[in-house]
């Protein structure tokens, strides 16, 4: 299993440009998450999904959109990039069910908006 994969690894955007961060998992996990990590900060939840066709906002959703058309894929869209969106973005997935189920993280996408 490849686990959770993210593309691209790095990207530089100009203000106002748009892009899609890709995330794919091959573990058949229903739950998927997008986080951003700013320097010296913890991970902040942007959006999450509990299954195909179902998404919901996290703590910091403004400026982002998501879709979940398949169990495997959970892309994150930035429509009008702003310098405040410079961050490292992590995608994660977990198995359904209660309890302290661990999340499996991708390697991250480092995004710079200038």
């Amino acid at each position: 299993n490849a686990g959770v994969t993210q593309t691209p690894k790095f990207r530089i955007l100009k203000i106002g440009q748009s892009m899609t961060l890709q995330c794919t998992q091959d573990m058949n996990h229903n739950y998927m998450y997008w986080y951003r990590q700013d320097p010296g900060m913890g991970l902040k939840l942007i959006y999450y999904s509990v299954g195909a066709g179902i998404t919901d906002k996290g703590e910091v959703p403004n400026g982002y959109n998501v879709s979940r058309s398949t169990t495997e894929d959970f892309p994150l869209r930035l429509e009008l990039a702003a310098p405040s969106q410079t961050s490292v973005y992590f995608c994660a997935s977990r198995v359904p069910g209660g309890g302290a189920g661990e999340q499996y993280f991708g390697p991250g996408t480092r995004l710079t908006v200038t």
Partner: protein
Amino acid sequence: DQQVKQNSPSLSVQEGRISILNCDYTNSMFDYFLWYKKYPAEGPTFLISISSIKDKNEDGRFTVFLNKSAKHLSLHIVPSQPGDSAVYFCAAGFNTGGFKTIFGAGTRLFVKA
């Protein structure tokens, strides 16, 4: 509103000694707590967890202690090894609402050989 706080940005420990990483939380409704470890240029990886109904969980060199009355948990690593040098995130989550997890800011652990 920081619901999960790690007040020590860094910690330095000698190889072979105990590392103690601390975490405080404010929401008494959390159902479970987790520790993740993160190396540079990689995603976090799960280390150990504890249910809110327990006060201790042990896995090899790693033990997590939960003090609910103080809203405090700690991760003990014994003995510490140079390969343990990483950023450690404390996290807390709920069994409802998509199992959302709230992360602390992390503590960078340096284990000196």
